[in-house]
């Protein structure tokens, strides 16, 4: 069946460094991709999304890169801050189904 996976369960980075969180998806028909941030005890919070007709999208301190050839996307966080400590999920969806498949999440730890 479909799957969405993240490459590392935990990522530790120094405060001020850039973070890169990776995600792979299996369904080549997927055309929406979303990154979520989930802090402890809270629901997931939307960070940024990207459509399959794009290969890069930038937000505030975040960039998502999409490589459809290898079915991979990444989330880059610039100048990582303590407040960025959380679990990050990617999700893949496709038009007409209104549903998303979620990855298992990478826990980002920011070291002071």
């Amino acid at each position: 069946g479909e799957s969405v996976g993240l490459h590392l369960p935990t990522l530790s980075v120094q405060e001020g460094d850039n973070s890169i969180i990776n995600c792979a998806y299996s369904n080549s028909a997927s055309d929406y991709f979303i990154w979520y941030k989930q802090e402890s005890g809270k629901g997931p919070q939307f960070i940024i999304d990207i459509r399959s007709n794009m290969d890069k999208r930038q937000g505030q301190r975040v960039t998502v890169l999409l490589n459809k050839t290898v079915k991979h996307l990444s989330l880059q966080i610039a100048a990582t801050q303590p407040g960025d400590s959380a679990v990050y999920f990617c999700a893949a969806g496709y038009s007409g189904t209104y549903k998303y498949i979620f990855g298992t999440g990478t826990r980002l730890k920011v070291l002071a």
Partner: protein
Amino acid sequence: NAGVTQTPKFRVLKTGQSMTLLCAQDMNHEYMYWYRQDPGMGLRLIHYSVGEGTTAKGEVPDGYNVSRLKKQNFLLGLESAAPSQTSVYFCASRGQTINQNEQFFGPGTRLTVL
């Protein structure tokens, strides 16, 4: 504007008991979802609704029922709780246009079944 709210926040049930989780959204969203989140696994879709009066099964629907009698509310029912249903449950909603991809999540309900 409260967004998505969930009731209750915590609950402990005994095996065989029943309960209903309530989700409410004030964003006039058409689509609503119920997920469960378990350690080491991604969010898994239980049931979803694309509009008032409609529901559909997701990835793991067994043991759950849902109702969407009002557009703003989406109820998740457990008729006879089992320990395997111990989980954190999240409700989400989103708009229906093609540009409204963002799902807004509630704070979650932590359910323990003994």
